[in-house]
């Protein structure tokens, strides 16, 4: 399954505002993407509560995975989003 692992760049971590922007983008892309942190079960990238439950702070490595049509493009787009400081 295609995967991308990136460090969360947002200063405040993947919480309220950055998390919401991420979830909105995942929903817009329309490809089922999962996100996880080491040692924990993956959650859907479109679930605000799921993403919040990861507890990712700035620098936390998160892994995105997806299958099927458009998976690689969706993963690239979401990985690029996480690599930016979304608090700006």
């Amino acid at each position, binding site marked *: 399954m295609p995967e991308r692992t990136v460090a969360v760049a947002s200063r405040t971590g993947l919480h*309220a*505002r950055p998390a*919401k922007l991420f979830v909105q983008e995942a929903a817009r892309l329309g490809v089922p993407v999962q996100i996880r942190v080491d040692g924990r079960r993956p959650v859907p990238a479109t679930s605000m*509560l*799921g993403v*919040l439950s990861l507890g990712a702070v700035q620098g936390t490595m998160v892994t995105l995975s997806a299958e099927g049509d458009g998976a690689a493009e969706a993963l690239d787009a979401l990985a690029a989003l996480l690599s930016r400081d979304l608090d700006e």
Partner: protein
Amino acid sequence: MLDVLDRRAVLLHERAADREEAIRRCGRVLVETGAVAEPYIQAMLERERSISTYVGEGVAIPHGVSREHVLRDAICVVRFPEGLDWDGERVTVCVGIAARGDGHVALLAQLAEILLDPERARALREATDVDTVIKELT
């Protein structure tokens, strides 16, 4: 989460005309329990205007972005049994958050874990006594 939740910061039978009034109510509780200084309420309103703090399961998490007016890490739980329109979503519970540094991320993760469990989420939404809320958030 218990150490940041003061019993006096749990209000279960509140009413508010709209989202702004609800946020002011949450901010007021944080001021009254010594967690934040007055200007934090304005910061909460500004943050909400930039992007909704609705997280799902009828819960919103109003908070300010600036740490400047935060005196100690704290949350408040304010329940609006009649429900509120929250930018198109229906909210019955506000968990107001005041945090310095990264403390709020771990806190939000714990809250999200609870809300991902439908039984616990319902218990929190329908709680009518302070002990139930404290139990659910522990």
